């Protein structure tokens, strides 16, 4: 079984400045409603958590390897489970790219400190499941 891995690092200050400069337009363009709910504070949004989610989306793109295709950020959704762990949910073009490449079993981990947030995404590659790929010997 082959694997693909993607990693990304994002400046928390950059996210904070984007929120200050562009507000809702930035937030709604990049993050899903549930991601925003997960990052909401009483007086705004937690820039560290948002930066970690952005890093996760970029790490996912590195796994999907879309060449020069547009993959809207909201089609890569980071879902937080009650106990705290995160999972990746792909839709639309992101899900199609994953299917085309025979990717499954996505796993995600994020980390953040006041200055930077990072994320790692891994996926299994099974070329036998990839539509349009030549059949492989068992």
């Amino acid at each position: 079984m082959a694997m693909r891995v993607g990693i990304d690092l994002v400046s928390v200050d950059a996210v904070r400045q984007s929120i200050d400069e562009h507000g809702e337009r930035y937030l709604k363009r990049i993050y899903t409603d549930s991601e925003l709910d997960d990052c909401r504070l009483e007086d705004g949004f937690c820039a560290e958590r948002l930066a970690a989610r952005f890093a996760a989306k970029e790490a996912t793109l590195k796994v999907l390897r879309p060449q020069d295709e547009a993959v809207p950020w909201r089609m890569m959704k980071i879902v937080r489970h009650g106990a705290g762990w995160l999972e990746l949910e792909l839709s639309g073009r992101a899900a199609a790219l994953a299917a085309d490449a025979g990717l499954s079993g996505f796993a995600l981990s994020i980390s953040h400190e006041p200055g930077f947030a990072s994320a790692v995404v891994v996926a299994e590659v099974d070329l036998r499941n990839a539509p349009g790929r030549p059949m492989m010997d068992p």
Partner: protein
Amino acid sequence: MTKEIRRIITEYGRLSVDITALPVDADLYQAGMTSHASIDVMLALEDHFDVEFPDGMLTRSAFESITAIEAALLKLRAEAAVR
């Protein structure tokens, strides 16, 4: 338009080099623009030029140089003109 694009990249692109010295076809990502900074550039371009980049245009290549950005903006304006 090139001058305005250059100003917006200076303000939002967070380049690691002096943009005034960059040729219009220089690769902005190679010059230090991150994916996240490209979003700020995109949103600032939308504000300034009163356009909206549709999801389908949000490719890496659309923002990789001043020339590419100018071409994308001209395309958006042309599309808006025929609507």
